[in-house]
């Protein structure tokens, strides 16, 4: 049960049940559709970038497990105000953390964000669930790269 509590921390349960920014963005500058073929979960990520390449707004639509919804919800909060490059770097660092790839350097300007993402570190004990945690992020990255579709396989 303790292992499970570590995976399903209060923050995750909260974001899973009450996801933030769960909506379409009518004025999105880019968006992408992500699928996890393993479980059939799907979501769409919407981004609005200002002319300087700063994420002005981020939102998502879709259904999924608590892990994937919580991760998407946290992501939309954390990348707001970041540059495109910072958003990509945050994903890189988050991926490292979720996959349990050991010590990593933390860029000072993303330290708080990575700190908040620590609640998802529990997935590293559950290899098949890492894809749940990263689905929204893969989709965000695809949207930034101009792709419409992405699959985690």
């Amino acid at each position, binding site marked *: 049960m303790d292992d499970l509590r570590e995976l399903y921390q209060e923050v995750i*349960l909260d974001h899973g049940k009450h996801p933030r920014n769960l909506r379409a963005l009518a004025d999105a500058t880019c968006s992408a559709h992500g699928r996890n073929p393993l*479980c059939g979960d799907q979501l769409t990520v919407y981004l609005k970038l200002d002319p300087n390449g700063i994420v002005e707004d981020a939102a998502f639509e879709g259904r999924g497990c608590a892990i994937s919804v919580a991760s998407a919800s946290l992501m939309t909060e954390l990348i707001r105000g970041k540059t495109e490059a910072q958003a990509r770097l945050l994903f890189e660092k988050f991926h490292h953390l979720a996959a349990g790839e050991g010590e990593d350097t933390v860029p000072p300007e993303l330290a708080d964000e990575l700190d908040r993402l620590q609640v998802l570190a529990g997935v590293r004990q559950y290899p098949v669930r890492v894809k749940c945690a990263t689905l929204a992020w893969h989709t965000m990255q695809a949207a930034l790269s101009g792709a419409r579709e992405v699959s985690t396989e």
Partner: protein
Amino acid sequence: MAGMTKLREPSRANAPYDIARVRADFPILARTVYGKKLVYLDSAASAQKPRQVIDTLTRVYEQDYANVHRGAYYLSMKATEEYEGAREKIQRFLNAKHRHEIIYTRNGTEAINLVAASYGRNFLKAGDEVIISELEHHSNIVPWQLLRDEKGIVVKVAQITDQGEVPVEHVARLIGPRTRLVAVSHMSNVLGTILPVAEIIRLAHAAGAKVLLDGCQAITHLPVDVQALDVDFYAFSGHKLYGPSGIGVLYGKEALLDAMPPYQGGGDMISTVTFEKSTWAALPNKFEAGTPAIAQAIGLGAAVDYVSALGLDAIGEHELRLLEHGMARLSAVKGLTIYGTTPGKAGVISFALDCAHPHDISTIVDRSGVAIRAGHHCCQPLMQRLGAPATARCSFGLYNTTDEVDALVDALGKVREIFG
């Protein structure tokens, strides 16, 4: 054919099903996961193996192994005898008329692809219609779509009812002058529904169409008599029938298989080869190019012996008790929805909880040792029809107990504890 084991008489119908003895045959059931007793409720994905099958594989590799059909020496002849002996066991298991109507494949998927590639490509023309149903596994959807893209055939889909049934009228509605093949599941891997296949076959035959049944699930729960059914093709996987993975079966009527061209070319499937022209071997070798899964086929023979000795009637009765217990216990769980509620179903229960996604359910019950599947179960179109992107699914094998069903229900309590 030598080396056949005599089947136990099917007079066990009234004998009590000795579940403790059955479980003792499955070594894996004694193991623990995360320090908890394993409760394996995913036999619809793949079944565990009895000692009799495991020992057969070991014996083949330790004592009786060589390539088949190729050597004029003792071991090769012995391996060939066992390999063909297993075919005969499967023939009797299905009550096929001829041994050579049993074609070995890698799995049920390959068996269906064989029919689509050989029968479909050669006997179906643009505009011809193949009827499938809404509850099909991707294995019985995609091969027909490939054929559609290649040949211009039309794939029609019979709808299910809200209880998850495929009434014969839903198939009848789609049958027309261009219907050439009806390819449906004998039993659904998600809903557990047993389809009215005898009626579907009569209906299709009256319209001049052939019938392929995807028996991957049904074969483990129900007695199947291909002659009584008068079915044209029957496909299943060995690994769900308590046999090894890597071996599957296509049953086809002799006349149809005879008329069909080979599926793959290579060794073992030819009669003569010159650079100008080759001629094909007789059935079943025509469809078994290359070195087959030798030990796996013999292992499947052992699995068929095992299941036959217990008797599918007795197994079916035991599993029905599990199903009834499971349906009663699960439907009493607060916030739980069951998908597939027809009384005409066998040992599979798909469900969802209002508080947690199937993935989260599966992760949580796993920590109590309970193995269930979560996801789309290779049936995405069915999921769309059900309006559920995924379900959790427990499925019963001949070794499960009502206590294990209770263990699942208890573990679901933990899901509620966490997700509230």
